[in-house]
């Protein structure tokens, strides 16, 4: 069924194990395994990308190097999953089935245009990511577009939306006649009017795979930091007034506590995998129940009614998409159902929580504490009551703010955009409801 794995070329270099770790379905992994086995002539591989890379090179360039012995495998920093494909000339064109064809396109014809907000600056695309884009596209900033509309408008076939910018409104869509795809960096698309965009015949793609690990990590980081009062502790440790450390200053335990995950998608499941190692009791609430094997693998119990989860959890973690159904999913009633010793952690979208109700609940100690990577708006106005509470941690939406994730998101977005422009199967298309 999969002659070439969707999601771009980097995944071709990953072993089955690595695919599974990324949370892909088993059919996907098996297909990948079989594909790589066949193409690379390997009977067994342990996910070491260098082995696979060299095998792939052997396949594309018959005179290329032989598989290195173990001692020559470089220790790559941070086990970075996925090679930086666009940097490697022998892997160019990996995003399509016919490498040679793409190389020809790059050599002679003009690259397709991609619109971005800006290069660098407070809200622009990071410079090293622009360099990645430039290998496949003619990068046009919004400023350049506005200064030279007549020349640029026809060239722009795609938009790379980075940190919700540029804003996609009707005016922009009307001024880009050849626009085919909006490639969003990140998995949330609540900032995009999917229906309106669809009416213009433009596709929308997101990057669900690149964000999963780092977002699950930040969920765990927030839960631990809140439970153990890490931020407060730091303040005590460096405060000029501190003369000695009090011994009666306590937090709450994470190990063996009950974690309720609301939204058990890619990210939610990875949170469960991590929480399991802390011996946590895991409850989850989801639109659909997961398969038995998946539940058993992380020891998760399904709560068909969200109320059951809220009443039993010591930590409630929100990992849902923002949709009309999940808007203000957690309001006064839900907060009232939670234990007074419970902590709310939000790594999805600010609008999923009724913020006024949360302020009240925290002030009146209806719940113990909250840890939010996301708020509405971002950033909060400086006089917002959240900023005055001492039982809340807020972080500036850093769920995917790692060097590795941000690069992977760009690569995934590039793969999606190219798939649309080349008429190939699109790895992560998002459809309006």
């Amino acid at each position, binding site marked *: 069924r999969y002659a070439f794995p969707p999601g771009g070329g980097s995944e071709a270099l990953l072993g089955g194990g690595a695919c599974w770790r990324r949370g892909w379905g088993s059919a996907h992994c098996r297909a990948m395994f079989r594909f790589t086995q066949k193409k690379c002539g390997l009977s067994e591989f342990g996910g070491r990308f260098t082995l696979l890379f060299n095998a792939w090179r052997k396949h594309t360039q018959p005179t290329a190097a032989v598989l290195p012995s173990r001692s020559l495998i470089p*220790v790559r*920093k*941070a*086990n*970075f*999953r996925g090679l930086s494909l666009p940097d490697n000339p022998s892997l160019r064109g990996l995003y399509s089935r016919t490498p040679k064809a793409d190389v020809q396109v790059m050599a002679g014809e003009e690259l397709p245009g991609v619109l971005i907000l800006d290069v660098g600056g*407070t*809200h622009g695309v990071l410079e090293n990511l622009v360099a990645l884009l430039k290998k496949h596209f003619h990068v046009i900033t919004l400023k350049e577009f506005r200064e030279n509309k007549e020349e640029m408008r026809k060239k722009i076939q795609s938009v790379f939306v980075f*940190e919700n910018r540029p804003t996609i409104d009707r005016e922009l869509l009307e001024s880009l006649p050849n626009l085919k795809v909006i490639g969003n960096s990140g998995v949330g698309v609540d900032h995009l009017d999917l229906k309106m965009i669809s009416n213009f015949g433009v596709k929308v793609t997101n990057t669900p795979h690149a964000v999963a*690990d*780092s977002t699950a*990590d*930040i969920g*765990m*980081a*927030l839960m*631990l*930091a809140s439970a*153990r*009062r*890490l*931020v407060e*502790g*730091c303040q005590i*440790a*460096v405060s*000029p007034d*501190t*003369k*000695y*450390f*009090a*011994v*009666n*200053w*306590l*937090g*709450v*335990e*994470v*190990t*063996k506590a009950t974690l309720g995950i609301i939204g058990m998608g890619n990210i939610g499941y990875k949170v469960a*995998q*991590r*929480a399991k*190692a*802390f*011996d946590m009791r895991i409850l989850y609430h989801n639109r659909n129940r997961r398969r038995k094997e998946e539940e058993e693998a992380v020891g998760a119990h399904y709560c068909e009614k969200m109320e059951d989860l809220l009443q039993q959890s010591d930590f409630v973690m929100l990992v849902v998409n923002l949709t009309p159904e999940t808007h203000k999913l957690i309001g006064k009633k839900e907060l009232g159902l939670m234990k007074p010793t419970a902590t709310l952690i939000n790594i999805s979208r600010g609008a999923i929580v009724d913020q006024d109700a949360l302020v009240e609940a925290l002030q009146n100690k209806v719940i113990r504490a909250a840890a939010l990577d996301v708020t509405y708006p971002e*950033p909060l106005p*400086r006089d917002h009551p959240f*900023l005055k509470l001492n039982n809340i*941690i807020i*972080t*500036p939406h*850093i769920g995917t*703010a*790692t*060097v*590795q994730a*941000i690069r992977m998101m760009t690569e995934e977005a590039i793969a999606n955009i190219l798939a649309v422009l080349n008429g190939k199967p699109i790895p992560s298309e998002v459809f309006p409801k």
Partner: protein
Amino acid sequence: MLKNTKEKKGLSYVQKGMEGQELPYVLIDSIGGKHGVYEDHLEFLKKHFQLITMKEYLENKKFLSENIKAVYMWYHKPVINEGLLQSLPNLKVVASSGVGIDHLDLKLLSSYGVKVSNTPFAVSTDTADFGMALMLASSRRLVEGYQMAVSPNTEYSPADCLGAEVSGATLGIVGMGTIGYKVAERAKAFEMKILYHNRNQRNKEEESAVGAIYCKKIDDLLQQSDFVLLSVSLTPQTHKLIGKRELELMKPTATLINISRGLVVDQDALVEVLQNKVIKAAALDVTHPEPLPRDHPLLNMKNVIITPHMASATKKTRRLMMENMTESIEAGLRGLPIPNEVLL
């Protein structure tokens, strides 16, 4: 007899145990406040012991010296020195809270025939959890992010707080005891590659359960790790285990996490390497001294997280510690084998 006792002690009552016998006298530093025995632990303790605070002891030394049979040492207090040992002829057991015993002169205590206990298992899970918390907070720049999110200035973007991934990175655990092993169990779920250095190699099943690879030479661990976590006990052998040489062996992108004791690290060398960006960051629950002097350079560095020695600071764990200490004292006073005894 009761009247006599009252006059002698100046106490308003004599505690009696379940069978009506007098409860053993146990010396503590104080009750409540920032350093004392927790008030919500008193009910349990008073069922087993007659607690004598340092203040009460000093007011009534003559009678109490003979009768105090154990010391309940809560966070290093009361301090036990030769003077105190000489004046407590019937002292049998000292129960110390926490797992570290570097603050006790074991030789001295042994020479007075006093047995010592600690609480190694009670603290292990919380300390491992806290090690993970520090690693995640440091790598994802959580504290910096919080400061940005609440500061008066709102012109920032997530890119200003770009951190490094924990998932899939390499963790080097120096000291794979109970705590170190629990850290490995947790790190495995983050798909981390786990290296460890220990006096002795763990057995194969233990290693493969967490996917840990033994590094006989600490240098190998230091050179390959993205995170170096110290979970050794402080002994003469581990004093300044991590010095300038070891820090320079680490990757420039590496982070040092210390949940053992401040003295395991050469603190001055650490300051220097952090200033010169020889390593990327540090996250320290322990320093030397605690707290650091307010003008210490570590307090001002952006790439350093310091917490006030709180790795075991949860209600449940502290209660468990107290119960363990009670058990150890009771066993010691009855002449039975002492749980969690610390041997020389």
